[in-house]
């Protein structure tokens, strides 16, 4: 875990409300693993006060830089989207557990919704490294084609790639989860998913029925990002004092089987 003042080196709009941002930080670029995130302070002042978490989308250790994919949803992300290259941001990272690598044997299925694609791009890239090699099939869904940000990056590190849009403006028409049964039928060693809670709940349910191990990247509002405030918990099914687990420290990657999806669906956080 490092805390560094970093420089924004590159900013690129990659969707109607989506930007790809690159930061200089050799320490984070040299140590981040897929599924981990960074915690970014957006101003030197108090508006907004708290840091914001973003998944690492990829690293370039040689160049000492890493990238995040940011969807503009409020004041903090707007400040990021409007920042000029050269601006400085104080960033803490890498944080969180990251995906367990290598996953269980067998082909891997990725299910991405919207900017949830970011950690899966990093994961897919890792799964195409010689040491961890897995055959990777990816499903990537969004409302409209324009929201399939960075689909090219994802498709380049996967063996099979299916885009799905609700309006059919790109790829298949429907919900991304409509296309998961076929993937599971073909056999899958493991499913990794990141996206809106409703999507994750459906992915988890299909995997449970199909007895396929499933790992999801979850979101929750964060105070500290490092495990001390106990603010970012999500409900799990484990008994006793472990009932609530911290997204920032125990996650953000969780075995879908331990999550209390009933409670998640009732709405206990952002997504």
């Amino acid at each position, binding site marked *: 875990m490092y805390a560094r003042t970093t420089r924004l080196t590159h900013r690129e709009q990659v969707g109607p409300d989506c930007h790809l941002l690159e930061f200089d930080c050799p320490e984070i670029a040299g140590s981040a693993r897929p599924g981990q995130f960074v915690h970014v302070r957006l101003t030197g002042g108090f508006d*907004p006060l*708290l840091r914001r978490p973003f998944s690492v989308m990829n690293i370039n250790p040689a160049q000492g830089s890493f990238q995040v994919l940011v969807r503009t949803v409020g004041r903090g992300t707007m400040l990021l989207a409007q920042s000029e290259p050269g601006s400085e941001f104080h960033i803490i990272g890498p944080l969180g557990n990251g995906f367990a690598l290598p996953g269980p044997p067998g082909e891997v299925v990725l299910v991405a919704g919207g900017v949830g694609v970011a950690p899966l791009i990093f994961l897919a890239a890792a799964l195409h490294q010689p040491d961890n090699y897995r055959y990777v099939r990816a499903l990537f869904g969004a409302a409209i084609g324009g929201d399939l940000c960075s689909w090219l990056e994802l498709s380049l590190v996967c063996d099979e790639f299916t885009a799905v849009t609700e309006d059919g403006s790109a790829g298949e028409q429907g919900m991304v989860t409509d296309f998961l049964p076929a993937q599971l039928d073909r056999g899958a060693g493991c499913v990794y998913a990141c996206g809106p809670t409703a999507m994750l709940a459906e992915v988890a349910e299909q995997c449970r029925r199909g007895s396929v191990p499933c790992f999801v990247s979850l979101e929750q509002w964060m105070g500290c990002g490092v495990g*001390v*405030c*106990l603010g970012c*918990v*999500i*409900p799990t099914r484990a008994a006793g004092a472990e009932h609530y687990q911290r997204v920032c420290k125990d996650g953000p990657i969780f075995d879908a089987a331990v999550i209390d999806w009933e409670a998640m669906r009732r709405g206990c956080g952002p997504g």
Partner: protein
Amino acid sequence: MAAGRVDLRVDLAGLSLANPVLAASGTFGYGTEYADLVEVSKLGGIVTKGITLAPREGNPPPRICETPAGMLNAIGLQNPGVDAFVRDKMPALRELGVPVIVNIAGETVADYVALAAQLSECDGIAALELNLSCPNVKQGGMHFGIDCELTQTVVAAVREVTELLLITKLSPNVTDIAEIGQAAGDGGSDILSLINTLLGMTIDIQQRRPVLANVTGGLSGPAIQPVALRMVWELAQAVDLPIIGMGGITSAVDALQFIMAGATAIAVGTANFVAPGVTGCIIKDIETFCEEQGIARIADLVGAAHAEV
């Protein structure tokens, strides 16, 4: 004045701190979590997350949300319970090399007494902080902290069973902070700390329901600084006990305001989340301020702003 010549030590009813800057309860875990980012040994001391007799899971999520220059939390005193605390957390806490203040909370007088008795047997604790002010659980002590008689009763009961220094942490959600502080003093508290969080809430207008699962939460952060400072000021006029001031401190300017208002030491809470290194900056900047102003001992500034009024 030459650099490093400022005496930053302060004395809290006999507990000597190397400097007046503490990490506040609930915002610094059990001392080790920030080790990568903070030179913990340079702090004046740390206050641990509130401990209860039995382990507690805390409140359902969402537990926090952001507000203008502040945040609401309704953690609900999630903690492993006192046995696990003594067994799993105290060993590392003892190694930090700074005074460790243990924050305790309960539902009944008996809870506080049992906690105090058990922790008195434990090595390495500099003081107990009685949390009479957690707004987020019925068992959080706030029903004590908003009532003079109950405050005095619980403090006196704890006083009976422990030789440890006793700090009483006061709730700001009261009409008259001075009378509660006096009651704590009458009960035998050695030190008073304040403020805990202000009760607040936020509503999600899309869902038409409170954002926090607990409905209300405690407001902390810069937004509350003026209220906290005023309460420290009022309390300092009413009691002779040393005070630990907190609430929205993010800089040496804030910290010095609390000291000049009458706080012997200060604690930093929410600001740790925003800038983990902030406590170190505050200590350094207090030292620089004293050098520039020719102040030999920070203790000389305690309550200084009262003289002028």
